[in-house]
């Protein structure tokens, strides 16, 4: 089985995340999709670290990614709340003020 199972899992997770981000209009779902993509990368990092265990770079980077993901979630949720207060909705296709 080796590493390829992990790679397949990560690819599927990333694909689900990307498609989810592109197709859903609900900001919360989009944030979740982003989390999914980030975590697929984490899976890859850990899998490679296990396959090539010379050092712990992969694990260390996974922590970084988790930290960034947490920060992103905090900022993202704050934006969602602020947006909801203005528009009474969290549908992204209503947020088109930047067009043209």
């Amino acid at each position, binding site marked *: 089985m080796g590493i390829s199972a992990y790679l397949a899992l990560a690819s599927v997770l990333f694909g689900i995340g*990307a498609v989810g*981000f*592109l*197709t859903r*209009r609900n900001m919360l779902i989009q944030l979740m999709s982003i989390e999914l993509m980030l975590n697929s990368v984490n899976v890859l990092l850990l899998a490679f670290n296990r396959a090539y265990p010379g050092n712990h770079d992969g694990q260390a980077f996974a922590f970084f990614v988790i930290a960034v993901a947490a920060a992103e979630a905090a900022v993202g949720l704050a934006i969602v709340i602020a947006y909801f207060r203005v528009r009474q909705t969290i549908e*992204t*296709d209503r*947020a*088109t*003020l*930047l*067009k*043209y």
Partner: protein
Amino acid sequence: MHEDASQQLTLLLIILFPLAGAVVNGLFGRRLPRSLVGFIGVGSVTVSFILAVTSFAELFALRAEDSHKAALIYQFYEWFSLKLPNGAEVPINVRFLMDSLSGVMTLIVTGVGGLIHLYSVGYMSEDDGYPRFFSYLNLFMASMLILVLGSSLPVMFVGWEGVGLCSYLLIGYWYENRDYASAGRKAFVANRVGDFGVLIGMFILVGVVGSFEFADINAAAVSGQFRPNFPVWPFGVVPSIATVACLFLFLGCTGKSAQIPLYVWLPDAMAGPTPVSALIHAATMVTAGVYLCCRLSPLFITSDVAMSVIAVTGTLTALLAATIAVAQREMKKILAYSTVSQLGFMFAAVGVGYFAAGFFHVFTHAFFKACLFLGAGSVMHAVHAHGDADIFKLGGLKKQLPTTRWTFLVSCLAIAGVPLTSGFFSKDEILLGATAQIFRSDDRLMVAVGWFTLIGLTLAAVMTAFYMFRLYFLTFTGEYRSAGESGGGHGYDPHPHESPASMKIPLIFLGLGAIFAGYLGMPHIVPVIGSHLPSWWGEWMEASVTGHAHPESMKIINIASGLALAAMAIGIGSAWVLYRNKSKDVLAEKVPARLYALVFDKWRVDELYDAIIIGPIKQVATLVGRTDMTFVDALLTRLPSFNARELGRFLSRLQNGVVQTYGMVLVIGVVSVMAMFWTPRAHLEGAVEGGTLQLVAAPGLGYEYRWDADSDGEFEGGWSANRIHSPTYGLEDVREVILYVRSPRTGASHHYALTEQWTALDLDRLDTGWRRIRSSLPIVARLSDGKVQLRLNGAQVFGKTDTPEIIELTMGRGTGIENVLMVPRAKVEATVEVRNAFGNVSTASREMTLPDGYLPERHALFLDATKGVSR
């Protein structure tokens, strides 16, 4: 010759004072009180006048003690220098010169100019643009003084253009009125036409003399440097250099001094305020042309043709303008045409070689014409006429305006040439010049010109006296014809009043000048009596102006004086009979109505110019304008901008603000980039580098290559990052042999792939120099037993009968057969395989012709190798 003279700073100051006045009034005038503006305007010119008088006195003293060449010089600085085609360097100095000619002119300009400035204080007192007016007027003074005092043509030309500019500014002074503004433009354009002539004349002169200084040009003229024929002349009789140069300069004079054909601007120039008409368009600027002719009198007098042209043009102008003046109804119009006519007199004098007389008329004319214009201005001021005053609505003003009336009368007497007034002396001298030419010259042309000038000027003098007194009688005698007017509207003030002192003082001074200025130039010999008088003017001018000597014959003198007196008497007499105390235009009822209308319309010269010059130019301009609108604006400007705008509008739809769309585009981009790099891009080039053949594959990120130089399906080595491969080819690698055929004569070439079968070579169109003698079969070639064989099939080289039937050629070596070069060449094929980081592989192959001489020593082996070749 003047270098040792001490610097006369005064000359510079004479110019700088009015210039400073112009700058101060122009920049700060709106914030200064009116009285100060007027003070600066008048004061600067007055100071200038005082300085001019002191300089003149110095010059006078210098003349008294020394030679005729006395002159004051101020060398300011060297402006720039010009390199002539022959390599000579011509310095252009800003240098000012006051000699007897420019000295007198300076006095006229500053003196009359000062009086007119003073007059303007009163005349313009109610105008909003008061500081602007004085600024322009002072600028004009400075320009005119540069014109007069400049010691060389370029410096004079600066003033020449400066006065043209000021004239334009002042004619269009009331620029809100479209007609006035366009009158200014007309003056400017007419002057530009003339200026072009001055420039050309200037270039001709400097080309011959190598100096712009008047003194040098005149010296060259005296020494005959302008006598030779003009070098470039396309047709007919070749004129001398002097003739061509003088005619070009005279063209400039016709523009500036309002002669035929460029006089049309001057009557329209009366759109400007009256002091402007008096100063610029009567007393000073318009005499610049006469001044230039006098300045260069030694040059002009060397060309009989140019002088005749000037005399005839002057006479015709004097006549034409005088006839027009007879029929006009408005004061300033009449005076304007009178000015044109009097300028014609001056040029006629110049044309018959009486430069001093012509300039004397400039001098006297400055007084009486300025006085007349200011008098007209005083009348207009009195009746509140704006622009111009219709004399048929005036009349009887001698009661209300005594000062104006008397000065006006005196000036009328002077311009009509009543004995003992200034105009009498100057006009008499001009007629004397014309008469003298008839008797002096043996040349039939010159005599004819003399007769024409004399008769024309006498007629013009009759008309001058007539129209001036028509003007005087209708304005000042009889009853005031606007007395019943209500005052408002278009009518004149029913209660005229005399002008303020600041206007009366100049009138009185100028009136005195109109009488007494002439005594400076009394005739040398009194007619009839024959006794000699001191002619101060002639002696004074001798130093700067040449000309023909005065005749001593009493007959000539009597004829001239008799004609002048008769003309004056007839003119004044008929005006007395027709117009004294009358209120209607009696003359109009006595001549045919159509003729009168034609003259009243100024002979419709403006209409003629419109039809033959301005109309076509306008049509061309309209055409060009339309082209600009349809082609440049629409096709070149609006169409591309439309395209860009619409494209932008379309593309901006993509910016729809929805974050998913942007994300989608991003994903598509990432996928596209990945797809692009998924497979490697293989590309192969062959190059000859230092005698060896190199294969070069296209580079790429992370690419690895492996080579199969002979394309036999077996790679020579493993994968490597080396993208350049230098294989060695042997005969076993040859894929194909081609025969390269070239005709050096026509440059045409072909190549044919050879096999073991005979291949037809279509060589006939290569101009081989061969001919067929036995058959029409084509020439063929093949590979046979490893050789390249050529079978001629019955073709023969011209002139030979022993051309072998089979010719063998050597690989990679040119063989010339008569006109044809034949080279058999070997072709190989190379292949490269490229692998990228994803492990994908792609292949590229290339056919290459081995360079000539690549296989020289192995040629013998070729015999065996050919079978493998032609597969």
